[in-house]
């Protein structure tokens, strides 16, 4: 609108102060402008602006911006299109959740060879942005077009992080911190030794926080071959890195760190063999701090405000890195017996807390079970979900059902169910037997759910976690009347089940 520029300049300061610069335009536009009566300067300027504006609009040629074509790569294997009737269901699943149902939908489509509908790609990517555990399912479902799309939005880079095998090294060299972490993790899964060498080379140049995050990647495929590196990292400048290494070493019962700790503990533990009776165990923590312990990150003074005295604090730190098998071998006692014994000593807080940490580090199923049997719901030193997640699924369901039966009040029921569901990886379902029993319990507390928001959420989560074989039974037998919130819960359960039924109906 070239003529408008000069007019606008005088209009800005006001024609009262500066007479309008009459635009001098060639051709038809100029000819039209010349017909304007300029007696009233303001009116004439407005008319000229109007003529130019309309002509500019009518003759508008959109600006040319050469951009490189950026085409989405085609999927290599031919994929089937999802029937249009299912699109609103997928839309609903992405918007309403729960994440488990999203994982199921994404997994189901990917396994059966369907293309995730293009229009719903942004939604699927948003789901993965919100829920980290869902990301592998998102990446498996969205195909090449989804990965192409994710590359254009910085909040979806998780889906492009390591898109294809062989890309890790490139990403490791040039990627952002998050991408490098993902690349290192992926490489660890394929070639643990090669990944360790990458990490070793990177340590001198990385910042403290980045170093700690990268060292934590060694969790994947951790083995005694990583020990020499981890031992040197116990002397790292950063406390975060030192702690991460200590944790990793403590989780390997065969590590020399664990042996050193066991040696220290051995000096405190006395086993008295009594004739015809089981051994008697007694413990006496060290009297003085040995400066050599500092090399294994044992702290001399307890943290401010802690309930521990200095000796208990040392005991706790030593015991947490001692293999749990060592206790069993030393005492010839079962985990249950050992827990009973620990509670009878003067040092029970330190010992039980150390064991709770060790159970988690070493992922010892028998100990997790012992803890679950021993502690009532409210007083575990470890959150129940962690303990349950250590157990293999069958044992986990058994323990959770036992806990639920013990509780009368629905609050612990929903807490336990929540733990059970949290420990269940996305993409997996509960066993038919356990789910059927839980369903009976849930139906029993349906009325209570009217006042309990958490419980209501559990119902829906459960509907997504129940096995396919239970879906028909679960779809029936709900009351037709009740308070609005109960009816709403039922309708959400049925919606989730309907979604799942339709997904299973897709031919593979």
């Amino acid at each position: 609108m070239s003529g408008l520029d000069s007019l606008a300049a005088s209009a800005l300061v006001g024609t009262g102060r500066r007479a309008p610069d009459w635009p001098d335009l060639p051709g038809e536009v100029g000819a039209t402008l010349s017909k304007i009566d300029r007696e009233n300067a303001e009116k004439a300027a407005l008319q000229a602006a109007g003529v130019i504006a309309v002509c500019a609009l009518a003759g508008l040629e959109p600006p040319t911006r050469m951009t490189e074509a950026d085409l989405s790569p085609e999927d290599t294997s031919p994929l089937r299109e999802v029937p249009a009737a299912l699109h609103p269901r997928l839309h609903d699943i992405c918007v309403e959740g729960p994440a488990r149902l999203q994982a199921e939908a994404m997994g189901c489509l990917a396994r059966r060879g369907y293309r995730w509908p293009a229009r719903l790609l942004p939604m699927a990517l948003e789901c993965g942005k919100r829920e980290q555990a869902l990301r592998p399912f998102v990446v498996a479902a969205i195909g090449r077009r989804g990965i192409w799309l994710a590359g254009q939005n910085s909040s979806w880079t998780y889906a492009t992080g390591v898109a294809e095998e062989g890309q890790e090294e490139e990403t490791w060299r040039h990627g952002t911190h998050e991408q490098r972490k993902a690349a290192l993790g992926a490489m660890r899964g394929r070639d643990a030794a090669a990944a360790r060498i990458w990490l070793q080379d990177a340590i001198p140049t990385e910042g403290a926080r980045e170093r700690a995050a990268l060292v934590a990647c060694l969790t994947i495929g951790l083995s005694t071959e990583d020990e020499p590196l981890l031992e040197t990292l116990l002397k790292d400048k950063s406390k975060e890195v030192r702690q991460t290494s200590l944790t990793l070493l403590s989780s390997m019962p065969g590590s020399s760190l664990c042996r050193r700790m066991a040696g220290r503990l051995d000096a405190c533990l006395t086993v008295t063999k009594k004739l015809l009776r089981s051994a008697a165990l007694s413990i006496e923590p060290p009297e003085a701090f040995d400066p050599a312990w500092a090399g294994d990150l044992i702290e001399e003074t307890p943290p401010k405000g802690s309930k521990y005295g200095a000796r208990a604090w040392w005991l706790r730190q030593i015991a947490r890195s001692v293999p749990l098998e060592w206790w069993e071998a030393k005492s010839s006692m079962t985990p249950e017996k050992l827990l009973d014994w620990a509670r009878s000593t003067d040092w029970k807080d330190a010992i039980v807390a150390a064991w709770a940490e060790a159970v988690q580090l070493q992922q010892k199923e028998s100990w997790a079970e012992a803890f679950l049997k021993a502690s009532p719901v409210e007083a575990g030193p470890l959150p129940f979900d962690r303990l349950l997640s250590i157990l293999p699924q069958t044992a986990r369901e058994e323990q959770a059902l036992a806990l639920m039966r013990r509780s009368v009040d629905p609050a612990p029921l929903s807490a336990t169910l929540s733990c059970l569901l949290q420990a269940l990886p996305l993409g997996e379902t509960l066993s038919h037997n356990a789910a059927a029993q839980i369903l009976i319990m849930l139906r029993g507390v349906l009325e209570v759910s009217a006042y309990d928001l958490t419980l209501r959420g559990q119902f829906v989560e459960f509907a997504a976690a129940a096995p396919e074989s239970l879906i028909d039974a679960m779809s029936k037998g709900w009351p037709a009347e009740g308070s609005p919130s109960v009816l709403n819960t039922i309708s959400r359960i049925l919606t989730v089940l309907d979604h799942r039924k339709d997904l299973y109906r897709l031919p593979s």
Partner: protein
Amino acid sequence: MLTAEQILALAPDDSSSKSAKGLLNPAKWPTLGSAETTIWGECQGSGSNPYQVVIDLGGPNFKCTCPSRKFPCKHGLALYLLRVQKEGSFKAGDPAPWALEWLNARQARAEKAEAKKARTEETAEPEDPEAQARRERQRLKRILEGAAEVERWLQDLMRQGLADLPSRPASFWQAMAARLVDAQATGLSHWVRQIQSAAASGDGWPQRVLARMGRLQLLLDAIGRLDELPEELRHDVRSAVGYPMDKEGVLRLGERVSETWRVLGVSHEESERLWERRVWLQGATSRRTALVLDFAHGQRRYEQTFVPGTSVAATLSFAPGFPLRALVVDVRSSADAMTPVLEEESWDASLDAAASALARNPWLTRWPFHGHAVPSRRDGGWFASESSSRSLRLRVADEDGWQLRAISGGEAIPIFGEWSGDALRPLTAWAARGAEVAWTETASV
């Protein structure tokens, strides 16, 4: 039959479609039945009597006995969705007595209206011409007073300078806009609002403000000599001022075109609880474009539903002049899936059409645009490019932009939208020429 997505697009708001999805359990429906073009069902609500729902699929037209004022209500939407998703749950047969009652009543109403229309058309005796002329003169006088006032206002602004316009309070614009509404010149008031938004449009605002002030001035000049203008232009000026020919006039005098109309796109806009719906239609044989405007207060509730990607056999009456505006005289059948014939890939046809439209009516503020384009995001905004050269700014919500991008895969896809000269508001998109509708606008900007 519509697809589930098209049905959900009929929902008056998000909560309706959400509630409808909660009713998709056949167990909640003690009765579900279907006949050739009708489906009906009884839905158990919170009360003791179930709600009775009937849908005439030809419209689609909905009827429900629930007290909701939303239209279609959640029960109607759910019934239609069930039909699509669980056809097996419907029992084929003659409509239930209550459904039949509604269908017959509706039929009778339609016949009565038809008869009445025929009667008035036959015996149409225009009301007292003198009284009508007097009313016309009075209204025109008020409009001319409003025009004179806004003309002085414009000239004062020019004399004093535009520099402080962006910092003016809302009340400054409100005062002038309200005076013009009082003068029954809502179109002029709309132009004042246009200037206001141009003043707040960032870099380069003085040119945009001046351009709109200038077009308003041309409109004022035209009102001043309305009697001298050719008839067609006179209608356009009256429309632009906010004094268009009334419905009855358009139905009586407008040019009637009967044919199959393809629904290209539908846009909704709300201002102070008044909803405006713009339906863009394209004649299947005449290729003529029509704009059907509807207004609804409070709720998005309209008598006739239009679904992009379907077609309606209807008679339209085009308002005189060139605003593309048309009224629906009658709809004979509707909701057949039918893909529109889109213009060739080059944008030139759309650009040329826009240029000749403006040449005939320089006060048009939006006109239809269709062409193949690559949607992409650059510098934080969305653009549509014609095979990576000419490009237009897209007026689109971010989530919609990403959906378009995903559908395109980086290739040019057919897009239909409203073009306002500085941005294209996409309304409908297809994954490929001849394919079904892949996208309609979901979020307004």
